[in-house]
């Protein structure tokens, strides 16, 4: 396969194209279902780890058996049963692999398609055989359980994933067969298997796309919890569908809406303070550029960017070492200035929390944020300064009329981005600094979502509702900011 695009386009009939696309879609879904625990056809006993996908069931004996200690020891399920199950899962995986390879090859020229479609015609029956073996493992466990009279302990059942896989196997076989029959035979004996470059490049990219899909797009599927009365461990289905109940609850339940108002006030206050001081890095950069010694500039830049690279947990550790009861401030007051009774714990207080959080953020971030402006200043045309000086401008006028206007475009982008992110100030800083005393004034939206959903209580549905609303507002703000940027600057920011 060379990079030259010399493969002729082999025409496809509408029927063939239809079969091929359904087949590719089915192969893609099947491939992903391998890693999807709810679709695991091998979970034939409730004692098999709920988090095990078909893939894990096939390769990891530990995962399969880690909840079955006593059952295995007492031989209610034998090691042989487990081995049979694992082998069956591996067989299914082999079949899926063949189908997926066929799906990839079906993007090639006619010769490659015709060859590639043989793979699922073999692979789908292999999948079927694997599923049959899983059923055998189930029957074998059933037999052992019956003889041990412990059937109820084993929680044997054919899982929903089994039906899903049977359906997918059938679909893969039929569409592959249809596509195979609809593909005309390659008459040219000299024809080689080739694929157009655009599809080859796409297939190389596919693993990355799938990873992004699984970890960034698939979570959107979790938004459904907003419409159900979900408690951890239960299932969701028609029986607990509640429509917009949680959205209404958010605004009608007095305690919750009071919480929401409080949390929004904290969020907006702290984001607002951040935006109000977002010019600080510019000031930092402009002043630093006024220092004549390059060595000193580099020295300052090196040391003021260090705090940006430590985690918020470490910032908190530093805060404790300086401001807690036995921290630097108190020991300095006691042992150097000989004051008595200096044992204030400055962190255990709710006074000026917003301001303190702003100061920590500034301490951590200002040196780093200034870098982009320092580079911006270096990029300003020196002739402007010379011309201004010839006209009699002093350095303050140069700063005001040349340097700062030169940095404004960069600043506008930063400002718009921070306005778009006004609801997302992250939870890490506020989580580490929160304590019993200041929790009411430090809880921002992100932290609130964590606290009610995962941290303190397990109100998955309510927490999802808050998260969904926040995501929607966030994306709206982002588009607004982008629209403003386009109108004003003629350039988009995303």
């Amino acid at each position: 396969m060379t990079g030259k695009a010399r493969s002729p386009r082999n025409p496809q009939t509408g029927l063939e194209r239809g079969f091929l696309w359904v087949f590719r879609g089915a192969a893609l879904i099947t491939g992903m279902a391998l890693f999807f625990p709810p679709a695991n056809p091998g979970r034939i006993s409730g004692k098999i780890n709920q988090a095990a996908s078909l893939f894990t069931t096939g390769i990891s004996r530990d995962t399969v058996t880690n909840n079955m200690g006593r059952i295995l020891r007492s031989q209610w399920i034998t090691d042989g049963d487990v081995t049979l199950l694992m082998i069956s899962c591996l067989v299914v995986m082999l079949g899926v692999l063949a189908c997926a390879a066929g799906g990839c090859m079906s993007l090639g020229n006619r010769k490659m398609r015709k060859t590639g479609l043989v793979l699922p015609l073999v692979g789908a029956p292999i999948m079927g055989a694997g599923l049959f073996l899983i059923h055998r493992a189930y029957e074998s466990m059933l037999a052992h359980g019956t003889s041990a009279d412990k059937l109820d302990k084993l929680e044997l059942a054919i899982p929903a994933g089994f039906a899903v896989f049977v359906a997918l196997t059938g679909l893969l076989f039929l569409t592959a067969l249809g596509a195979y029959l609809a593909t005309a035979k390659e008459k040219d004996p000299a024809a080689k298997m080739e694929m157009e470059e655009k599809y080859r490049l796409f297939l190389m990219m596919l693993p990355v796309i799938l990873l992004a899909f699984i970890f960034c797009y698939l979570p959107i599927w979790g938004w459904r919890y907003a419409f159900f009365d979900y408690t951890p461990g239960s299932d969701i289905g028609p029986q607990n569908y509640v429509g917009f109940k949680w959205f209404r609850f958010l605004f009608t339940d007095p305690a919750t809406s009071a919480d929401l108002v409080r949390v929004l006030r904290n969020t907006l206050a702290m984001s607002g303070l951040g935006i109000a001081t977002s010019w600080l890095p510019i000031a930092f950069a402009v002043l630093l550029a006024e220092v004549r010694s390059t060595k000193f500039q580099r020295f300052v830049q090196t040391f003021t960017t260090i705090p940006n690279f430590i985690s918020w947990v470490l910032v908190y550790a530093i805060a404790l070492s300086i401001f807690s009861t036995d921290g630097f401030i108190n020991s300095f007051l006691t042992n150097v200035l000989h004051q008595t009774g200096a044992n204030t714990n400055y962190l255990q207080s709710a006074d000026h929390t917003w301001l303190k959080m702003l100061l920590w953020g500034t301490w951590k971030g200002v040196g780093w944020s200034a870098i982009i402006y320092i580079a911006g200043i270096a990029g300003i045309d020196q002739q402007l300064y010379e011309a201004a000086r010839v006209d009699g401008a002093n350095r303050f006028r140069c700063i005001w009329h040349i340097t700062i206007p030169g940095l404004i475009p960069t600043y506008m982008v930063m400002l718009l981005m921070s306005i778009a992110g006004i609801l997302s100030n992250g939870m890490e800083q506020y989580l580490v600094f929160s304590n019993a005393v200041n929790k009411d004034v430090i809880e921002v939206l992100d932290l609130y979502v964590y606290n009610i959903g995962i941290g303190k209580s397990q109100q998955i549905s309510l927490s999802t509702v808050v998260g969904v609303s926040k995501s929607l507002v966030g994306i709206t703000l982002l588009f607004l900011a982008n629209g403003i940027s386009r109108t004003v600057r003629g350039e988009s920011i995303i």
Partner: protein
Amino acid sequence: MSKKEKSQATHIRRTARDWVFDIAIIVFFCLFTLICVFPFYYLLINTISDNDLVTSGYVNFYPLVKSAAGQAVPGIQISNYVALQNVQDLGSSVLVTVARTILGTALMVITSAWAGYLVTKQKMWKRSFWYRFLVITMYFNAGLVPWYMNMLMMGLTDNFLAYIIPGMVAPYNIILVKTYIESIPTSLEESAVIDGATTSRVWLKIILPLSVPILATIAIFGAVGNWNSFQDSLLLMNNRPDLYTLQHRLYIYLNSSSNLGAMMSQGGQVSEQAAQSLLNQRVIRYTVSMVSIIPILLVYPFMQRYFVKGIMLGAVKG
């Protein structure tokens, strides 16, 4: 910048106001630098001083140890770092953090290099769609709980792989690599293609060696991010304390001691034993903090130019 600035300096006759201004900004920056550096120094001297002197609050500006006569004299001791091996659960978190930093960073860099190269290929089927598909994930996320439920569904809770696999696709880094590769002359690549090299061979033999600077940049960003990781450990590893990362472990140490501190400051009765544990907790907390800062401080001077390069490349829109 430097040369221009110097030539600029020789041209200007400084007035008195200029002198005052110059001195003021130098003093300001010295102070600010001190504020940035002193906390680290303070932590360090408290870990290498005598623990009794630390507890009485005498160690403020330089490390102190007790002399043979019991007097406080300047000096250092490293017994706290040696004693760390006895701290419960610390070893496993260091191992986990080192492992995820190495594996996670390596996989992220390889994926970014591969994807960043492929998205420069105009011929790819629906290239701009897939590129946007990746980039959008920087600006949009489904929310914490749906993300958590997704990880649960994928079997990535209480699982070391949760530290590595989700981090493999880093859209920002893909943009950085893409921007960098676009600046490489295409003639090199074209000549290799004419010689019959496949896409993956071109990537391995030509693109990778040429993009080492940008890969180093993203590797350092990735390594620092992995080393500092706290949130995923907090959210996902509920039943596996042996998989807690170092920052998570430190967070636990910090909290257990700050609660004791709160009791004392509110005038509550603290038993002898609790006071003793406060002392130990405090030394542990300083020393563990230092242990998790030191690697960053050690690599920092060598890596600083890469950090700066990274943020500058990011400023160029992808």
